[in-house]
Every structure is written in structure tokens, then in C-alpha cells.
């Protein structure tokens, strides 16, 4: 009897450790989904467009990051030196978001802007078209096969080599980059004049216009911000997952879209929460249900949550205006 209870205890401690490990992995992946989801949710909040091309902007960003790393390595950039490493990542985090922001704004100006007054679903088809175009650009740029993204950050376990739970510098990097970005975004939207203009436009564009807000500029700003977030996510994704391919925008976009809706679409903290829920659902699904059911599980959870909270986790239940 005693031996049996001893076994159970040993098992239990193992259980807690794996639970902790799954939670860590889930939260880290969730942060990534959240970062992509933010771009979705902001664009949706302003012009009610499900921007299917968002994931592909993210994909092109990761190709740019890969190309930059290759060029920098070719010019003898010493990634093993911690200072140069962080400087290099800083450079990536500056250039790639700028590129993605510019790309996103261009897409908006050329493709979506002429359709502002069109029926609601017309820009959706254009967005799908843009997604196809960007995917093809990615194919021509990076080729059809999966590409390895250099493993620049150490995999050393920060909790010690023998710790039962792995938390590496790489995991820390994800948190260290995504959390400040999210915080900065929240401050921007809540506290600055432009942020206020964005919120006003999201609430009622006509009234906002009457108050002297230049809606076109606000929309362009939203696309720029969304693109920049996708760019930052692309860099973090590359460094963390280490594989990029021209088709990755689609699947990540799907999860990000799901995260945005799950949290209450148009709601910034909601998108973050939605991303974390999806990350955790994937990790626990893989650990406790079975890897092959993981992706289905994410959507089952989504449907279940929406049945009980029809406006998402943090979405406000607005009364219909008459």
C-alpha cells in the first residue's frame, strides 16, 4: 500500500511538471498568435474588414527577416556575441515592421480604399485576392520548400540544466519582445490623441468625421500599426519557430483571426486573451487529448465559448441600435 501511494506521489509530481511545461509552451505560442491577432482586430475595429491578407503580410515579413540575417551573416555579423545579437535583433525589429507597415498601407490605398463605400463583403474578396498575390510573391521570393530560419538565440535552460521544466532564453525572448509591444500599444490607444481618434472612428466614423477627425489618416495609421505588429511577430516567429515558408501566412492568419474573434473582435485585450487561450488549447490538446486532434480541439473550444459568450470573451454585449 505504501509503495503504491509513493508511486502515485512520484507520478503526481511528474504530472505537475508536465502541466507546467505545457502551460509555458502554450503561453509562449499564445503570445505569438496574439501579436498577429492584434493587427487583425485593429483593422476590423476600424473598417469591419476581415483582412485575410494579414497573415501573408506577416509571411513576407519573415522572408525579409531571413534575407536580412543572411546578408548580415554574409557581412560577418557576429551573432554569437550577445551585444551584436541584441543589436541585430533590434535592427530586424526596426526594419521588418517598417516594411510590413508600408506594405499594409500600400495594400489599403491601392485595394481596399476604393471599396470603402462598397457592400460589406466586397473588400473581403479583394482581401482574399491580395492574400493569393502575396502568397505568390512569397513563392517567387523564398521558393516552394520550407526554409530554415537560423537559430540565433541560445536554447540553454534558464532554470538550470537539470530542471524538469524547460524555459529557455528563446522562450524569454518571445515574452520580452511581445509584452512591451502590447503594453505600448495599449498606452497608445488609450492615452494619445491619435489613439483617441482611432477609438472614435471605430465607434462611429460619421460622428468622428464631424468632430474633425481625418478618417482616411486614421485608417492608414491603423493599417500601418497592424502591419508593424505583423512585422514584429514575423521576426519573433522566425527566431522562435525557426521555419518559414510561403504558406505559413494562411494557417497563422487563421489562428490569429480565431484569436481575434474569440476575444471579442475589435477588442485589443481580447485579442491577446484569445491568442493565449488558443496557445494553451493547442498545448493541452497535444498533451492530454492527442496531437492529431489538437487543431480540431481549438475550434471546438472556440465554438463552445461563442455559444455561451456570443460576443467573445471580452466583447461587450452591445444592444442593437435602432
Amino acid at each position, binding site marked *: 500500500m505504501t509503495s503504491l501511494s509513493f508511486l502515485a506521489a512520484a507520478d503526481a509530481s511528474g504530472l505537475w511538471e508536465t502541466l507546467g511545461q505545457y502551460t509555458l509552451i502554450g503561453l509562449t505560442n499564445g503570445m505569438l498568435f496574439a501579436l498577429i491577432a492584434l493587427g487583425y482586430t485593429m483593422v476590423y475595429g476600424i473598417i469591419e474588414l476581415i483582412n485575410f491578407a494579414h497573415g501573408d503580410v506577416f509571411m513576407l515579413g519573415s522572408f525579409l527577416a531571413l534575407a536580412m540575417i543572411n546578408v548580415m551573416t554574409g557581412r560577418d555579423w557576429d551573432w554569437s556575441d550577445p551585444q551584436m545579437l541584441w543589436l541585430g535583433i533590434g535592427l530586424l525589429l526596426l526594419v521588418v515592421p517598417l516594411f510590413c507597415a508600408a506594405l499594409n498601407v500600400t495594400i489599403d490605398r491601392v485595394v481596399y480604399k476604393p471599396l470603402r463605400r462598397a457592400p460589406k463583403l466586397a473588400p473581403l474578396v479583394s482581401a*482574399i485576392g491580395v492574400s493569393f*498575390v502575396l502568397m505568390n510573391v512569397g513563392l517567387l521570393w523564398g521558393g516552394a520548400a520550407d526554409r530554415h530560419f537560423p537559430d540565433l538565440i541560445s536554447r540553454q535552460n534558464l532554470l538550470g540544466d537539470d530542471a524538469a521544466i524547460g524555459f529557455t532564453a528563446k522562450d524569454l525572448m518571445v515574452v520580452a519582445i511581445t509584452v512591451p509591444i502590447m503594453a505600448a500599444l495599449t498606452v497608445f490607444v488609450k492615452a494619445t490623441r491619435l489613439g483617441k481618434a482611432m477609438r472614435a472612428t471605430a465607434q462611429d466614423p*460619421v460622428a468622428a468625421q464631424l468632430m474633425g477627425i481625418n478618417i482616411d489618416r486614421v485608417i492608414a495609421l491603423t493599417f500601418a500599426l497592424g502591419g508593424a505588429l505583423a512585422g514584429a511577430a514575423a521576426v519573433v516567429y522566425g527566431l522562435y519557430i525557426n521555419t518559414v515558408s510561403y504558406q505559413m501566412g494562411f494557417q497563422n492568419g487563421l489562428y490569429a483571426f480565431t484569436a481575434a474573434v474569440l476575444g471579442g473582435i475589435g477588442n485589443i485585450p481580447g485579442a491577446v486573451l484569445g491568442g493565449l487561450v488558443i496557445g494553451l488549447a493547442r498545448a493541452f490538446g497535444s498533451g492530454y487529448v492527442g496531437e492529431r486532434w489538437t487543431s480540431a480541439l481549438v475550434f*471546438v473550444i472556440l465554438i463552445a465559448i461563442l455559444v455561451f459568450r*456570443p460576443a467573445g470573451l471580452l466583447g461587450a454585449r452591445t444592444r442593437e441600435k435602432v
Partner: protein
Amino acid sequence: MSNTTAPKRFPMAWFYLALLVAYPLLVYPENALFRLTEISIGMQLTYIFIYAILALGLNVVVGYTGLLHLGIAAFFGIGAYITGILTVPAYPFQVGFIAALVLSTAGAALLGVLLGAPTLRLRGDYLAIVTLGFGEVTRFTLRNLEEITAGTRGLNPVPPPQLPGVLATPLSWLGIQPDWSLDYRLFYYLALGLLVLVVVLLTNLERSRLGRAWVAIREDELAATCMGINAARVKLSAFALGCGLAGMAGCLYATTLTSTAGPDAFDFNRSIIMLCCIILGGLGSLRGTLLGVVLLIGFDNVAAPVLDGLIQGANINPNGNPLLTFSNWKLLIFGVALIVMMRFRPEGLLPSRVVEEELVGYAPQPRGKLLRAR
């Protein structure tokens, strides 16, 4: 409603139908086009008819009722797999085509209702993501339940329908061989016949009490409810009919191809393309939906291989430069076509008259909210 203009348009539909009925019987155009393009246009038309049924089903949900549905491919797949399970030799059922068609339609409609009942109170894009999620769950389920669905291999062979004996003589007069796999024209007429039935059904429904209720819900759910329309029941009926038609198309698809293909044939991409077809054609418009299917499916199945063949035949690429192969540019061309068409016809190529009048009758709104419940 401008019902008065309807009779004027009527003969045109008859003309197109007559053309479609006559085309395979004339034989020569098909042969000439095949020599020119190396594509059997008759056979591609068969697939277009099948996709048209699928798109018309989606149009009931999205076009008439205004519920954004991103998972129609799942119901298409459910129809195909119900047919597969009921007919392939590996299972003991082996029912006939008609029974499979009815059960696939009913099964898909039932699942549509089961999904719809708890979720139809969701608004706009929340419903969209639930249907998307259901589509993905269905795909993974088909994939993972290997004992039932044979996984990614797909169920096969789905046998062709039994030809009624009375048809033997008329078929031989028309020069059609009574073998489904040798003569494409049997499936062609089967699919065309079902499509015509569906179109007739929908044309009548459009003008019925239920059809007007769908449109009322799309235009203003609150006002419609105030007028005594049971919104939940009306939406559920649209879901049932739309998903049922998708299941019917799935049954035809599996029968024509003699296999259920694999679960990945019914993925999110398929749903998105069908949605593009109906938006491009004109939401809520029967003619528009049919045109959208002809253009998009036609591009993928006819125009793309023809262009590819021309480029390879012209031999401009002796060194195998990957930049000069068509397959490297296919997605781009498809995407640009979508963008350009929406840019110049945002309301669709053949918008329904109700939407058209709305666009003319109201001042443009600052945000594209026309098709949402206001």
C-alpha cells in the same frame, strides 16, 4: 419589387438552357474545342454544374439571409462522405444513387440545423468564425476517423447510378453510350437536370413567403421580427436548405469522380472560393451566382490548363527557368483577377435587383454596411 421586369428576362434563361442541352448532342463543337484547347469543355461544364449547386446553397445562407458562412465545404464533404459510406463495396449498405442523393442532402441539412440551432443568435462575424471552425473540425474528423473514412485515401469506388431500362432506346438514338465512365454526357445531363431543379426551386422560393422573410432578416432583423417573422426559424430554414444543397452537390461530386477524394478536398480554401464565386457574381442573385461559378471554377479548371499548355507548347522556356513556368504565377493571376473584378464591380457582376435598387436608392454610406443588418 420589380417583378414586372421578370418576364422580359425569362426567354434568355431558356436560351442558355437550350444551348447547354444542345451542346453535347452536337458533338462537333466539343471535338473542335478539345482539339483547340485539349480540355473537354463538356466534362468541365459538369463540374461547373455541381459547383453551381454548391454555390446556390451558399447563396441561400449568405446572399438571401445575410449570414456569413465560411464552412460550406464541410457540408459538401459531408454529402460526399455520406454517399461514399452508403455506396462503396467496403460497406454493406450499397444503396442506389437516388437513395444516396436523398440521404446525403438530408444528412447535410440535419447537420446544418444542429450547428445552426445553438449558434444562430451570434451576430455577423461571430457566426462566420463558428462556421469556419465547424468546417475545420469536420475536416479533421474525416481525417482522423480512419476506420470509417479511410483517412486521406478517400472512399472508393463510388458506383455510377443505375440507368433505368426505359432510357436505353432514347440514349442510343442520341448516340450516347450507356456507360457512365466512357461517356461524360450521362453525368452532364444528370448534373444539369439537378441544377435546373435547384434553380426552379430557388426561383420560386425567392418569391415565396419564406424567401421574402430571408431577405427581410438580411435587411433588418429587428424590423422583420417586429413584423412577426420568427427570425430563429427563418434563419434555421435557410441554414438547412443551404447546407442540404451543399450535401446534394457533394453526393454528385463523389459519384461523378467515383471517389470521395480526401478530407483535404473539403477544406477552408474550398469554402473561401465558393464565397468568392457568389460575392463576385452578385450576392443574392441567382444569375450572378451562376456567372461567378463559371468565371472562377472556369479559370481554375479550363483557362489555367489552357494557358499552361500554350506556354509549354510555345517552347519559350528551353532552359527550364522557373520564372517562366505558369505554375509559378498561377496564384498571382488568380488573386489579381479577384482584386480587379471587385474594384470595378464591387456590387458584383450581376447584382440582384433588390441590392441594385438599394445602391441607387440610398445615399452611399460612410462604411460598407449595406448588406448587414442595420
